[in-house]
């Protein structure tokens, strides 16, 4: 199995659809991720419409004619489906394929000097299982009772037939996430083994680019924790379909019964590492791009790696901080609080490493750099507000308010979105052979950056004022009525945010067809993926490169006439 088989037939089916080439699979994940990103984003706009203009007909430009219900209004049922599916889609079908699926596939073999993934067929199977899971998820909309509406966490007993949500929507949700988990596991096996086995000669672990480190650590977390949620989902699924009683208790359960809290534990044992699964690739990409666009070695690259690894370990023992209000023992709450706050130490260390990379660098404000620096800003706010949520005393007040929504959108939505855009802008020339239009990219960046902050920061303000995160009609409560104007402002900004993403989509597609043809190494980066001509052939490298440098030898005084050197070129005078 060690040689890559090239099929002699060059049909569209084998080269573009059922391809085993990691680059094609990466692009497939990218397109699917962008589709779901827009889908989930559109749902977010509908949620915002309801919060700002409750019970008013949805206008045509939000596709009001599709929304069923009385006179085009969003009914409570539809509203529940909206926030459930928004969360589910964004986490599992937008962020996961965009960063882990697309860039994991595209970057890992290219950056470590491998011809392909360790198991190319498994890789293809992973994408198509993922695709199938998306079909199952969306097909729930055709059920008479609609899609899942129990929140993205799908807590039982609410998510069980006995718990009140009618129809099969929840079962479709569970099944689709299970399939998604299977696809993720196939990908994770591939990524972990590829990095262990297929690194080019000389590519030691510490010579791997930091983005590969981020993706690799993410995959290790996936290996450990996706199986756990898979078990939880299997139990939930047979609770929903066969009538077992794992997560039913009290009068809902006949004869004994189980424990709803068990699902919350299983869910968050996976669910908390999941947020690091989503953010670790971004940390890696940011650490690397800062170095490229500051023309300086990444400050403390080894320490950054060690900190990220520490967080991988710590992230697995902090799940209880999602459950402070479930009646957990206060002693346990304190323990989880302490462990959670510990994470801020390694996070701060690599955060300062980022700032130190910028310090006295020769900064190039190309679109990837702008997005990367935006990650620093939004991650700082997201990280700092996380401290309030991690502290038991503050969290009991803030739990399930818009403050939490604002916080995790800063860390997960904003950071990951900017990280994803940075990655797309940076590697677009390698993926499609052309450059994104820089002017449109910059307009898109500034528009997104300003509006995203206005949206999510103000969400935290409304949450601090007491607005619960899943309210259908906040104005029903007298103490929330003064927030009406603020909710309208957030919604208008969210519409602008959405409009700027359309601009990105236009830029993305237009540049693919008519963009400026890119040189082989437009950013003058050191890593291996820039060494070959476009289009990169199936098999990537005609000969496996011999790596002699780390990935960050920018502005090395021993290099003559350039401020960069490829990882394969020996620097004269360097020991």
């Amino acid at each position, binding site marked *: 199995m060690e040689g890559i088989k090239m099929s002699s037939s060059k049909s569209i089916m084998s080269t573009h659809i059922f391809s085993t080439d990691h680059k094609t699979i990466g692009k497939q994940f990218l397109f699917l991720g962008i589709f779901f990103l827009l889908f989930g984003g559109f749902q977010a706009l509908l949620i915002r419409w309801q919060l700002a203009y409750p019970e008013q007909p949805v206008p045509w430009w939000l596709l009001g004619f599709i929304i069923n219900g009385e006179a085009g209004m969003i009914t409570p049922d539809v509203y529940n489906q909206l926030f459930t599916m928004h969360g589910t889609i964004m986490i599992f079908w937008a962020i996961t394929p965009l960063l882990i699926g697309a860039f994991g596939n595209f970057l890992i073999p290219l950056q470590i000097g491998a011809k392909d993934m360790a198991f190319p067929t498994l890789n293809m199977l992973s994408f198509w299982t993922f695709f199938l899971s998306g079909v199952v998820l969306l097909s729930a909309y055709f059920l008479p009772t609609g899609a899942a509406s129990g929140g993205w966490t799908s807590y039982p007993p609410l998510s069980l037939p006995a718990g009140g949500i009618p129809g099969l929507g929840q079962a479709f949700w569970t099944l689709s996430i299970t399939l998604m988990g299977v696809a993720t596991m196939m990908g994770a096996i591939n990524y972990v083994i590829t990095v262990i086995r297929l690194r080019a000669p000389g590519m030691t672990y510490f010579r791997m680019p930091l983005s590969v480190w981020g993706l690799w650590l993410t995959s290790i977390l996936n290996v450990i924790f996706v*199986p*756990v949620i898979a*078990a939880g989902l299997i139990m939930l699924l047979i609770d929903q379909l066969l009538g077992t009683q794992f997560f039913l208790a009290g009068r809902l359960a006949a004869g004994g019964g189980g424990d709803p809290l068990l699902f919350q534990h*299983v869910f968050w044992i996976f669910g908390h590492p999941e947020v690091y699964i989503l953010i670790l690739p971004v940390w890696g990409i940011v650490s690397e791009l800062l170095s490229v666009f500051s023309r300086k070695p990444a400050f403390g690259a080894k320490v950054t790696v060690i900190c990220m690894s520490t967080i991988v370990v710590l992230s697995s023992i902090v799940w209880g901080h999602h459950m402070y209000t479930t009646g957990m023992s206060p002693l346990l709450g304190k323990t989880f609080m302490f462990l959670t706050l510990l994470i801020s130490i390694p996070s701060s260390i690599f955060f300062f490493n980022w700032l130190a990379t910028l310090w006295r660098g020769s900064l190039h404000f190309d679109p990837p750099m702008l997005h990367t620096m935006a990650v620093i800003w939004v991650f700082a706010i997201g990280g700092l507000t996380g401290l309030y949520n991690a502290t038991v005393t503050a969290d009991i007040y803030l739990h399930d308010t818009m403050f939490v929504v604002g916080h995790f959108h800063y860390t997960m939505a904003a950071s990951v979105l900017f990280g994803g855009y940075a990655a797309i802008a940076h590697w677009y020339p390698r993926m499609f052979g052309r450059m994104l239009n820089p002017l449109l990219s910059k307009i898109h960046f500034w528009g997104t950056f300003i509006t995203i902050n206005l949206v999510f920061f103000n969400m935290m303000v409304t949450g601090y004022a007491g607005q619960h995160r899943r309210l259908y009609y906040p104005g029903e409560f007298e103490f929330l009525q003064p927030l009406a104007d603020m909710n309208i402002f957030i919604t208008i900004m969210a519409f602008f945010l959405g409009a700027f993403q359309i601009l990105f989509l236009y830029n993305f597609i237009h540049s693919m067809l008519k963009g400026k043809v890119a040189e082989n190494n437009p950013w003058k980066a050191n890593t291996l993926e820039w060494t070959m001509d476009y289009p990169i052939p199936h098999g990537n490298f005609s000969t496996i490169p011999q790596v002699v440098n780390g990935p960050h030898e920018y502005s090395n005084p021993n290099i003559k006439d350039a401020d960069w050197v490829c990882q394969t070129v020996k620097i004269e005078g360097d020991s």
Partner: protein
Amino acid sequence: MDQAIPMNKTFFGNATTGKLGMWLFIVMDGLTFGTIIIGGLGLRISAASWPVAGSILNVPLTAFNTFLLICSSFTMVMALNSIVKDDQKGLIKYLAFTIAGGVIFLGIQAWEYSHFIMGGEHLGNLLAAAGLPGSQFLPTTGIYGSVFYATTMFHGLHVLSGVIYLSVILSMALKQKFTSNNYDRLEIAGLFWHFIDLVWILVFTVIYLI
């Protein structure tokens, strides 16, 4: 393009890439089983009552089933042993025995299930003695039924996929795809089969014996 992908053999010795992948899969699958088994044990500890071991489930029959599965693991080892000596006939014979072991295991489990689902007066009496309602033992029969069916069904699905997997390996063996220096796929399939066997011993202990 014929150039082989060079491998880093530093950390995991001479294990092939495929074997490493299977080991990683076994780690993942083990975590899934672990979650189901530990979750079941947790629910059992907090349950008000739990039927005494052997009061409902047929322990001797399942003990025989366990023995059968261990035997099939043994024949799997013999299959590997045959190909090391380049004994094609032995390989096919022992692989067929292994698959037969898995099929009979599934048959006995299906018989046990059908017996529980059909129910009857005798089963009703046993259930009543254990404090459970009805004359059938179903997934809906309290948390005991949930834990029993979830754990054994999940394992049964693994045996089924193992049987399918080994059948593919057998068809490769019939085409003489394996030789004494090329039997990696056989070894990898063996790893999976032994894992299923090992998990069953755990499931048998937790569900049937204690």
